[in-house]
Structure formats: structure tokens, C-alpha cells
């Protein structure tokens, strides 16, 4: 699983959800007190929205994704996953350029070209076989690279974990997604639906492990999300990563 998979791109218009999120924020209080996480002032709202999302996930997404996983053999699901990942490589290319990451941009463009043509529309990930690594990027991470702080943690309806910065980036990320431009609209919506189910199916094992590992799944998810999307993630790669003082 890579960073972006923690966030769902649902099948609804970004703008409408932004408005809904703003409304939720306006009515939600702010968390204070000694236990409050500095990056999570909206914890009461976030916890309520997480509960709502988990409910939808349990009643709708998990059953649908489980059937999907049981019915479709792995090679078919692999092809579907590759197809959508290939669409993402093009937007990763744009964002790697915006972040002036030369090698990553070149790799992303090469991946998109190779997989689109030799990999038959992206169904086969030929580029990975050829050891051209994927460098996933999106506009939220680009804003971060430009110095925009993540802002508060924000759980969006249906989309799940996000931050204020990533929410602001959502319209750009929606536009940069090739599936968004698919026409007629019914085709686009089918693509969205298929992608959401395929992603959820690929994460079925992950959520189980998360629930076994966490004392509090809400804070666990939040901290992991902020860890992979935050400022530290942009600077990661030092040989001192994860080092602890000797006398800890």
C-alpha cells in the first residue's frame, strides 16, 4: 500500500463535499485539554465522522469489496488495479514536475508511456518489471513541498482521512485524475465505482491488521496519515530516520 491509498477518491463532486465539510466544521466544536493532539483541534467532529464512515464501510463497502475479491480472480483484479494506477502515474508526473523532482518525473512519464502502450492501456505493469519505480505524488503533497503546512487533520465524509491542505488540493487532484474526464458521465461514474471497490478490496487485509495493532484505531489512523502526508514525509530519506537517543 502506498501513501495515497489511505485516502479514497469517491464518486462525488469535490466542490459539493467541500461545502459539506465546511458546514460540518462550522457546527463542530474545538477539542482542547491536556490530551488534545496539536494537529487535531477538530477531534470531536473527526471522531463522529470516522464513526459515520466506519458505519458506511461496514454496511456497504466491506461486503461489496469482499464479494468483488471472491468473485474476480487475482489476474483480473491485478489488471484493474494496474489500469487505475497507470492513470495516476500521469498526475504523479505533473506533480513531480511541479516539485522539481527530475528523476521521479522522468520515471513517471516513462511508466505512463510504457504501460499505456506496451502494457495495453495500463492493464499490465510492464514498467515495474523493467525496474522503473513508481513515485506517487498528488497536488496535496505538491502544496506541502512548496511549504504549505498540512493544517488540522480532517476526516471527510466518505473520503475519510485528510487534512485541511489535502482538502484544498482535492479539486485539483480531481481534475488531474484522467477518470474525471471520461465521457459520457455514466462511464466516468462506472470508473469511479470500480476504482473505489477495487481499492477497498486491496485494503481488506490492511484494516484488519490495523484494528489488531491499535489501542485506539482513530488516533492510530490519524497519526499514520499525518506521518505519511506531513512535512516529515517530504523530508524523509535521511540516514538518521527513526534514530532514537541511546539512553531512551
Amino acid at each position, binding site marked *: 500500500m502506498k501513501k495515497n491509498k489511505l485516502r479514497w477518491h469517491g464518486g462525488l463532486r469535490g466542490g459539493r463535499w467541500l461545502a459539506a465539510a465546511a458546514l460540518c466544521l462550522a457546527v463542530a466544536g474545538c477539542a482542547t485539554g491536556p490530551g488534545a493532539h496539536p494537529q487535531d483541534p477538530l477531534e470531536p467532529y473527526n471522531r463522529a465522522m470516522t464513526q459515520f464512515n466506519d458505519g458506511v464501510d461496514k454496511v456497504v463497502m466491506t461486503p461489496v469489496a469482499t464479494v468483488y475479491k471472491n468473485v474476480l480472480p487475482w489476474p483480473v483484479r491485478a489488471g484493474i488495479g494496474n489500469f487505475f494506477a497507470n492513470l495516476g502515474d500521469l498526475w504523479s508526473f505533473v506533480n513531480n514536475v511541479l516539485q522539481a523532482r527530475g528523476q521521479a518525473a522522468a520515471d513517471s512519464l516513462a511508466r505512463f508511456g510504457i504501460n499505456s502502450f506496451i502494457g495495453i492501456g495500463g492493464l499490465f505493469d510492464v514498467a515495474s518489471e523493467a525496474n522503473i519505480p513508481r513515485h506517487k505524488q498528488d497536488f496535496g503533497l505538491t502544496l506541502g513541498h512548496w511549504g504549505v503546512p498540512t493544517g488540522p487533520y480532517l476526516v471527510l465524509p466518505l473520503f475519510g482521512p485528510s487534512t485541511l491542505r489535502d482538502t484544498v488540493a482535492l479539486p485539483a487532484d480531481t481534475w488531474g485524475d484522467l477518470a474525471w474526464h471520461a465521457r459520457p458521465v455514466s462511464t466516468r461514474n462506472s470508473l469511479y465505482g470500480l476504482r473505489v471497490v477495487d481499492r477497498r478490496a486491496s485494503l481488506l487485509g490492511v484494516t484488519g491488521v490495523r484494528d*489488531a495493532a491499535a489501542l485506539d484505531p482513530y488516533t*492510530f489512523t490519524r497519526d499514520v496519515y499525518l506521518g*505519511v502526508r506531513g512535512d516529515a514525509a517530504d523530508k524523509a530519506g535521511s540516514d538518521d530516520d527513526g*534514530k532514537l537517543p541511546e539512553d531512551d
Partner: protein
Amino acid sequence: MAHMDWKMDRRALLRTAGALGASAGLARAWAAGEAPDALVGRLSSEVLDAVRKDPQIKAGDVHRIVALVDKIILPHLDFKRMTAASVGPGWRKATPEQQQRLQDEFKQLLVRTYAGALAEVSDLTIVVKPLRAAPADTDVLVRTEVRGRGDPIQLDYRLAQKPGEAWKIYNINVMGVWLVETYRSQFAAEINAKGVDGLIEALVARNKANAAGK
């Protein structure tokens, strides 16, 4: 990219060792001086080989995986340090008994989680990336990549070596998130609310729920 596939290296090494007729004693002596990246590569392939060969594990028997992890991985973890760092400032204030219980319960939680993750996977290979460290370093980062279905998964290890001892793992990074850092905030919430005993209780409850769930 100059990746080393330790599975292959280990096979070659075993052949060489066999040809030389290396005794068990010699093998142990070699293991004590084992480089940190070699150690991580060896442990990774031992676990994957064992998972591959064990039909009970393939059938989803978590107890078997727990036993496997206990045997192969745990001797190479500095578990006291991992627990102390995850508990944070509360560690020094805890009694030796509390410290022992924290270690035992945390160990159980992590092994269970790791076993659960292993049970989810099949057909994996682990690639150890070239080590960027000076020979005199006593604290290094070993980066690996788990390749299987879907995108590769980043799995990094922080290892330290005390004079005259073997390298030991004391922190692990899964997909960009450090384990000690993650548990530090999980634990802090419990300690702030209910003290060290409250944290122990929460760990016990989590472990019980995990054991009942599988």
C-alpha cells in the same frame, strides 16, 4: 538499480558453507560478526521460506506464525529498548514488575500484528537495499522493500550494536511510519488517562481481543 537479493546470496552462502564443511560453532561465530544488512536479509528470507514451506501457516494458523516469529525474529530484537522508547518518560517511573509486564504485553501485541500481516501475504520477496553506513557506525538504517502483489512496501529497520555484541533491531518503519513513534502516542494517551497500570490493562485487553478474534 543495484539491489541485493539476499535470498539468492544466502543460498550461495549455504552452498559455500556446506562445501567447506563449516561446523555449527563456526557458523555461530560468523553470525556474531554478521553485518546489519546481512542480518536483516537473512531473517527476512528465513521467515519467508518458513511461511512458504508450512502448509498450516498457509491455511491461516496464526499460532504457527507466532511461534515462527518468536523463534526467528525475537532473539534479534532489542525489545526492552523498543518498549522503553514507546512508553516514553513514564518508563523510568514504572516499577521493574510493571516494566516487565509492559514488555511482555507489547511483545505479544506486535508479534500478533506481524503474524496477522504475514498471514495476509503470499508470494513475497524482500529486497535489501544497499547499506549507506561507515564500517565504524554502531547505529544504522537498513532499508528493505517487500515485493508481492500491488505496489512494493517499504520496510526499514534501525539497528544498533553494543561493543562485542551482535546487531539488534530497535525500531521498524512500515510504509514510512516508525513503529516507536506511532506507539508512543498510542501509549501516551493511555498513560495520561489512567497511568502505567491503565496502559498495561489496555494492552492486555487488546491482546485478549486479538486472540479471541482468530
